Each structure stands twice: as C-alpha cells, then as structure tokens.
C-alpha cells in the first residue's frame, strides 16, 4: 500500500472532483466535505511519499508497471525537493479549501459545484506537475492546471474578472505552447521523453548536447515557463487575474501557480538539462540574473504605487519571482542560490497564502480592498492582524520567519557567485517591502476610523479623514473561525519553516545530488 502513495496524491483529488461532478449539482452541501476529505487524503499521501524520499532517497513509481527500458512509460519520481513541494501544495490546498466555506448568511451561488471541481482539478494538475518524471506528461498537467485556473479566475461575477481570465488564457496558452515546442525539439534530438533518460543522453553524448536543436529546446522551454510564472517582462496577465478573481480562487492560485512554475524551471535546469550544461554556456547566467534584478526592482516599485491590497500583493509576487529566478541562476560554487530559490518556493507559497487569506478575509467579510480603509484594524480584528503581521514580516524578511532565511541563502549565493547587483536588488526590495507593510501597519494601528474608502491618496492622508470618517466606517469584526484557522495556520507554518530551516535546507541539498557539496553545519 505504501508504494502506491505517489499515485494516490493526485488520484484523491481527481476522484473527489469526479464525485462532485456526480452528486455536487444536486446537493451543493456535499461539495465542501468531499473536497476537504480528498485534499486531506492527498496531504497524508504526500507526507508518506515524501518521508520515504527523505529517508531513502529519490525513487521512481512506474505507471502501468512498465519498468524496462526506462522511458517507455511514464514515471513518477519523488525526491527531497519535490517531496517538500508536494507537502507544501497539499497544505496550501487544505488551508485554502477551508477558507472557501461560505458563511450561512451568504447567498449560495449555483456555481459552487463547478468551483470545487475546478479547485480540485487544479490541485491534481499541480501535484502532477510536481511529481512527474516525464517531460511531456508535465505539459499535459500544465494544461490541466492552466485550464482550471482560467475557469477559477473567470468564475467571479464581475465583468473585469472575465477580461482578466481571457488575457490570462491568451498568455498562458502561448506559454504552454512554447513549452510543448521545446519538448518537441528535445524529442527530435534525443528520442526520449523521460527526464532522467534525456539527462543521461545529454551528459554522455556531447555532440547531441551541444547541438542547436537542444539549445533551441532549452530556450523555448525556458521562455514558456517564464510566461507561466510571470517573470518580469512577461508578467502582464498576473495582476489582473489574481486581484479580480474571487477570494477563494486567489488563495489557491496566487500561492501555487507561479511557485510550481518556478519549481518546473529548477527541475528543467537541474534534472532535465543538468546544471553543468546550463551554466556551461557563458553569459547566460549573468543575463538571467540581470533580468531577475530588473524583475525585482520593477515589481517592488510597481507594488509601491498600488492602493489596493491585492494588487500590491500581485506586484510583490512579480518581485518574488525575480528572487527565485535570479537565485536559481546565480551559479555560485556551492549552489546556495539554487538552495535559497528552492527554499523560497516553499516560504513564498506560505507567505503569499497568508497575505492573500488576509486580503480575502477583508474583502469577503468587510468589502475592503483599499489600503487606506484599514484604519483601526489591529484593535477590531486582533487575530487576523496577528496572521497578517507574521505574513508581512516574512515578506520583509525579519527573523525568525522563513522569509529571512530564504533571503539569507539567496544573498549568500549572490555574494559567493559574484553578483553584487542581485544582492543589492534583494536588499532594496526588502526595504521597499518594509515601507509597504509598515505603511499598512501604521494605518491599521493608528488610523482610528476607516476612511470612506475612495478618492484620496493612501497612507498619511487617511489621518486627515479621521475627524469626519465616523459615519461611513464599515463595521470591522473579527473574522469567523473557519477563515481564521487557515490564516493562523499559515502564519504558524511560516514561523515553523523559518525555525526548522536548517533541516529543510539539508533535505533540499540532498536532492541536488553530486553537483552540490552538502554542507550540514551551517546553522
């Protein structure tokens, strides 16, 4: 039974979605329990499957039982790196699904069943992308996750979320096509689709590895994934899609979609082409790190200009993607950059979840979306505020939150790899994050009454409205328990991930195999 866990991780939500398809339309109350139960099963299987990889090293699960020769069938492969990510996805999905419980007062919409089907299928796609050992299967699951996420964005009632979804659809399709084209070139040159198999061919056969076809394949795959992860010049779809979609969707989409794409990039660099091949091309590393620097700075500056909480968070995601791409491409001798980037995938998933849950609570229960309206928040909603503060501190990078440690490793990689511009960009971005979040803290703590919520600038201006804002103030009340549980759990996990960073970093580095020197005494 234990050997079946890798398959069970995605089969549980798949069957959950199908079950909702069978019964959900007739009885909407059945949707949530089915979704929750299937995600809990996934979480348990992910824990089991990952534990086996942590203790016994990477292992394969052969779909259909075809083992020899490698690559005739599809392989699921679990190692320490994707084991951690599988757990993270399952945790985020479980917490996000708890947040989707509707308050009994709120009108139940007819689309509940479709929402949960798409929600679960998106989880299937993300788990599948993470666990697969096959380059083409990765594409199929990118399609599953992409289609469902377009649906989850468009399910909102407003017109602009439909437009955002359409824009997202166009960009996402281009990204997926580029990836597919790249896989086609790879198949053309190697005759294989299995990631391990292709890697063996590329490392043993230098003429194939240096051929133009392989280089083209890499470029196409890379650009495709960059579109999917909203790397800076290709980020256009993200802010609208994530800020206009319903809160329940954004709590799943924002923490996971881009992060899983970053994982795919790391997987492609590490396991498909191999780091020696990628960094064997002079200039690539510098170029991408510079792109990442621009991404970080641009994301931070654009975040500074936003008035709405969700939009601000969206631009912060763009900056965070810059952190991870830059870190992965630092090419420092001890791979601290890649380590930091891998660790930051987990850290960023949790802190994005935390902050989007916070934004979701404010919007769902109080209709607040602008930063200026947060006055008096800390007093009226203390528990929500605790969750938010921890998420914000992690985003800034204050110890002992996980955000501090990921920045620590990334900066270490930047210094050892000789990229002062990357280190500088990271520090500037942290500073910008501090400005952004302390501005919110200030409003939430000192602003006595929420301002009437439009037509004025943010920050300092809201104090000017204190004297006459009384009548228009929305009633701030503590969020209900089922919204607080995921928020506080996410906050607690951010702290735990930070405190146990040493062990997690060690695990990540075991996944890098021979190409990394595993240093254990770094705490």
């Amino acid at each position, binding site marked *: 039974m234990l050997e*079946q866990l890798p*398959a069970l991780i995605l*089969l549980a939500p*798949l*069957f959950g979605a*199908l*079950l909702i*398809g*069978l019964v959900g339309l007739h009885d909407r109350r059945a949707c949530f329990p089915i979704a929750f139960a299937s995600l809990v099963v996934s979480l348990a299987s992910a824990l089991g499957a990952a534990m086996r990889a942590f203790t016994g090293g990477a292992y394969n*699960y*052969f*779909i*259909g*039982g075809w083992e020899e*020769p490698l*690559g*005739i*069938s*599809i392989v699921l492969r679990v190692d320490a790196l994707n084991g951690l990510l599988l757990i993270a996805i399952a945790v985020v999905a479980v917490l996000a699904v708890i947040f989707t419980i509707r308050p009994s007062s709120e009108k139940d919409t*007819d*689309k509940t069943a*479709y*929402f949960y*089907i*798409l929600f679960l*299928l998106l989880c299937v796609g993300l788990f*599948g992308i993470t666990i697969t050992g*096959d380059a*083409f*299967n990765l594409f*199929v*699951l990118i*399609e*599953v996750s992409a*289609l*469902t996420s*377009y*649906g989850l964005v*468009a*399910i909102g009632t407003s017109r602009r979320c*439909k437009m955002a*979804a359409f824009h997202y659809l166009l960009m996402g399709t281009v990204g997926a096509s580029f990836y597919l*084209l790249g896989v086609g070139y790879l*198949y*053309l*040159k*190697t*005759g*294989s*689709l299995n990631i391990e198999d292709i890697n063996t*061919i590329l490392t*043993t056969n230098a003429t*194939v590895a240096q051929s*133009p*076809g392989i*280089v*083209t*394949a890499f*470029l*196409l795959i890379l650009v495709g994934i960059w579109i999917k992860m909203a790397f800076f010049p290709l980020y256009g779809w993200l802010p609208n899609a994530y800020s206009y979609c319903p809160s329940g969707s954004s709590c799943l989409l924002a923490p996971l979609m881009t992060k899983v794409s970053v994982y795919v990039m790391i997987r492609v660099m590490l396991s498909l082409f191999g780091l020696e091949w990628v960094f064997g091309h002079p200039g690539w590393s510098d170029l991408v790190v510079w792109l990442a620097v621009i991404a970080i700075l641009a994301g931070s500056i654009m975040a500074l200009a936003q008035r709405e909480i969700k939009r601000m968070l969206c631009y912060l995601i763009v900056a965070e993607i810059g952190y991870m791409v830059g870190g992965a491409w630092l090419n420092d001798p001890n791979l601290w950059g890649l380590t930091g980037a891998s660790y930051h995938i987990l850290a960023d998933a949790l802190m994005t979840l935390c902050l989007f849950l916070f934004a979701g609570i404010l919007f769902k229960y109080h209709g607040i979306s602008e930063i200026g309206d947060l006055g008096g928040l800390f007093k009226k909603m203390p528990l929500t505020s605790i969750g938010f503060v921890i998420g914000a501190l992690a985003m800034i990078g204050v110890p002992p939150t996980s955000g501090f440690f990921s920045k620590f490793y990334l900066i270490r990689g930047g210094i050892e790899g000789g990229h002062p511009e990357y280190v500088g960009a990271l520090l500037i971005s942290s500073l910008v994050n501090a400005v952004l979040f302390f501005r919110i803290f200030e409003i939430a703590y000192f602003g006595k009454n929420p301002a009437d919520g439009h037509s004025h600038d943010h920050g300092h201006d809201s104090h000017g409205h204190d004297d006459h804002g009384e009548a228009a103030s929305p009633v701030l009340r503590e969020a209900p328990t089922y919204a607080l549980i995921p928020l506080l759990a996410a906050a607690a996990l951010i702290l735990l991930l930070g405190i146990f960073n040493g062990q997690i970093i060690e695990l990540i580095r075991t996944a890098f195999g021979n190409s990394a020197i595993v240093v254990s005494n770094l705490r």
Partner: protein
Amino acid sequence: MNPKLYASIAVIITGLVLLYGISDFPTFGDPRSPANSGVEGGAPSTSLYYINESYGATKVPNLVTSVLADYRGYDTMFETVVVFAAGMAIFAILRCFGRDDEAVITAPTKSSIDGDHNRIIVGTTCRLAVPVVQIFALYVVAHGHHSPGGGFQGGVMLGASFILIALAGNLNDALGRFSERSYMTLASLGIIIYAGFGVLPQVLGKNFLDFGVLEKFFLTDGPEMARSHSMLGVEIGVALTVMSIMFAIFANLSSRGTLKGGL
C-alpha cells in the same frame, strides 16, 4: 510606442530561434534519426521498442492505440481530464440557473432558423442520419485496436450526433434525450471508468494502470489479452466523457448558459 512593433519584434526573435533550431533537424523520414532509432551510440529509442515489442506485450495490432492507452495511458487519462476541465470551466463561466424572466431576455429564443418552417426534410434526414452516425461512432470506439480510431474520435462523433439533433430540431429536443443531469453524470463517469481501470490493479497490489493483472477479471489467458481488453475499457470511458462534454459545451454556448431556447 506602437504595441504592434513590440509584437513584431517578439515574432521575429521567435522565428529566428525556430529557424536556428530547424538547421539541426534530421532529414525527413530518416530512419536513423534519434526519434526513430535512438541517439547514435546510445540505447535504442522508445519508438523502436514500441514497434518491436508492443504487439507481443499487449496483443494490440494498432500500436498507436497501445502507446496511447497503455504505455502512455496516464497522459491520455489527463487529456480526458483536460476535456472535462475545459467543459467545467465553460459551465462555470456560462451556466446561469437564472430565474425564467432573466433567461428570456438574454436567450436567443426566436431565430430565423427556428419557427414555422416546414422541417420535414431536415427533420427526417437527421432522424435517419443520427442512428447511422452513432453506430459508426461505436464502431470507431470499438475498432481502435485494429484501425485508426478510439475513444476521442468516437466520442466526438457521438457528441456530434446529439448536436445534429439540436440543430435539426431545437435544443430542447436534444436536451430531452440528453439532459444536463445525464451529461454531467456521464462526463464524470467516463473518467471514473478510466481511472477505475487504473485503481483496480492498485487494489490487487500492482501499480496504477497496470492492466496486466486484470486477467482474472477478464477470464483471459495471459496478461497481454487483459491489457488489450482494458484498453477497450478505457477507450469507452474516454468516449463517454468526450461525448458528454462536446454536447454540453454546444448546449451551453448556443443558449448562453440557460439551456432554454437556443438555436
């Protein structure tokens, strides 16, 4: 600046990269290309393995089917899930369970096609054609082992036969035969059949989609025939899902999600 300029630059760069890649293509139909026979000096490619071994291992003469439904059956299952997810996304956007008054305003109930026309010729032709289309579709599903065909193609034809009913008469006729409740059930059921064929071996202690172990159920001699029969089973699952989603997308699009009136 003109956005078209940026687009042109992006297109030109992409084109140059693709041309650079083409310079490295093997000659058309080259039997020694990596995809056909494997990298020079390396192990033989997987396609060579399929050509040599797949008939022996699965007893399916059409090796496209054996690769699609067995070796890479996991991909095919998710392709079916993609179809399902696309349907769900479209329903999530379009489907409105609106009160009747709203529905009447938005739905194109009276079109020039619908109305008092004498539809004897169209109606009779379609009534005659639909059973033939469906029987041929079933043949395509069942005959995927031996000739081009299979679940996706057969499913599309089955879906098209219901769309034909809707086009010739009206949507309500078609929905009377294939209601929302039944298409949602069948769409889910299709993938449940597919994934069920995968889970059954797991219950028997083998890996997901390892059809060979199902020989006890099919009362066949040897795992090869069990694989062959299971492939038929999963093709039927695919056909059910594709058929339902095809028709459902048509029904939702043509009536703007109300499932009333329509074309």
